[in-house]
C-alpha cells in the first residue's frame, strides 16, 4: 500500500512532469509526457503496486489521473 501523494509522485515521474500538474481531470491531452509508452507504464505501475488482475477494461479506463487514482483505491493500493 502507498499514500495517495506517493502514487501521484510516481505517476509524475512516469509522465516526466511536476506532481502539481496532475489534477484529477488531467489526461493525455493535458500532460505532454503521457504518451503511448507512458500509458504502458501506468499498467506496469498498477501491477507492481499489487493491483491484482488488470483486465482489458481496467487498462482502457486509465484515461485521467482521477481514473487511475480511483482504480488504485478500489484495488486497495492506497492507504489514505
Amino acid at each position, binding site marked *: 500500500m502507498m499514500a495517495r501523494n506517493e502514487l501521484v509522485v510516481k505517476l509524475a515521474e512516469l509522465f516526466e512532469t511536476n506532481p502539481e500538474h496532475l489534477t484529477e481531470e488531467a489526461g493525455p491531452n493535458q500532460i505532454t509526457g503521457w504518451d*503511448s*509508452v507512458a*500509458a*504502458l507504464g501506468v*499498467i*506496469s505501475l498498477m*501491477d*507492481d503496486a499489487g493491483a491484482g*488482475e*488488470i483486465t*482489458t477494461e481496467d*487498462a*482502457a479506463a486509465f484515461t485521467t489521473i482521477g481514473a487511475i487514482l480511483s482504480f488504485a483505491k478500489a484495488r486497495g493500493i492506497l492507504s489514505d
Partner: protein
Amino acid sequence: MRRAIVQSIATHIPEAVLTNEELATRFGNWSAGEILAKTGIRERHIAASGECASDLAFAATRKLIENQRLNPSAVDTLLFCTQSPDFLLPTTACILQDRLGLPKSILALDFNLGCSGYVVGLSLAKALIESDQARTVLLLTADTYSKFIHPMDRSVCTLFGDGASASLLVAADDEAKGLQTFLFGTDGKGANQLIIPAGGCRTPRSAETAIAKTDADGNIRTADNIYMNGREIFRFAITTVPKTVTQLMEKSGLAKESVDYLVLHQANRYMMEELTRKMHWPPEKVPMHFDRLGNTVSSTIPFVLQQMITDGRLTPGKKLLLIGFGVGYSWAGCSVVWA
C-alpha cells in the same frame, strides 16, 4: 526413447532497410533518437514488392541446407508458420516443398500463428519425431507484416520487421537433451486487439475496407491494414508471461538459478525490460536481439538462438526456457537442454 533436438538454425532478412531516420522524416514529430529510445529498434528489414514470406523462408532454408550439407531427400516433414501466406490456398508449405526439391513423400503444412508460432512449431516437431512419424523436420517461420502495415501508422511500422528462419529438427537418443517440457495458452478474447479486420471470409476486402481513417493518436490505417492495441497487448503480456514462466519452471522441475537463458519473444525493448524486471531475472540471462531486426513475429526466437550460437553463448548442455506470446492471444513455452 527418442528425443527431438534442434540441430541447426538459419535465418534470412530481406535487403531493404527501414531506418529510424526515414521514419522520423515520415512522421515529423518523432526524432530517430526518440524512436530508438522508445522501441530499442534502430532499423527493420522490409520485403520488396513481390517478395513474399515463402521467398524469405526459401532463402533461410537454402542457407540451412548449405551450412549443414543437408540432403533434401532426408527431410520428411515441413512445418511452415506464417500469417502472410502466398495465397489463401494452396498451403504455402506445398509450394515450398516443390521449390526446395523436397521429396513428394513428405508431410507439409502451414500453421497460422504469430509470436507463439516457433514454440508451437517445436512442439509439433517433437510430437511427430518422438511418436516415430517423422525423423527429419524442417520448421520454417516467416512473415511479411510490412505488406499489411499502413505507412502512416507509427504504432506498428516502428516495431515490425520482415524475416524468416529455418530450423532442422532430428531425433537423438539422449533423453536428457533436446526439447523437454511444453506449456500452452490461448485466449481468443484478445482476437480484436491485434488483427487485420478485412481480407478474410468474415469481412472481404472492398472499397469500404480500403478507406483510411485516423485514430485518436493520429495513426492512419484502413481495415485492410494491421491494427494493434499496443496498450492492451502490453497488459496481456505482463499479466500472462510471468505466470507462464513460473508454471513452466514448475512443470519442468527447474529453478530459476538452474536455467541459463530465458529467451522471450522479442516484441520491443520496453516490454522485454519490463518483463525481465517484473520476473526478477538477471538481464544477462534474458538475451535481446532485435535492434537491427524489429519484431519479426514468429521468427524472433530463432533469430536470438542463432545469434547465441554465433557468439558462443549457446553450447551443448545449456538449459533454456523459450516463451512466445502475442496475436490471438496465443502463448507457448518450452524448456530445452541444448544438444
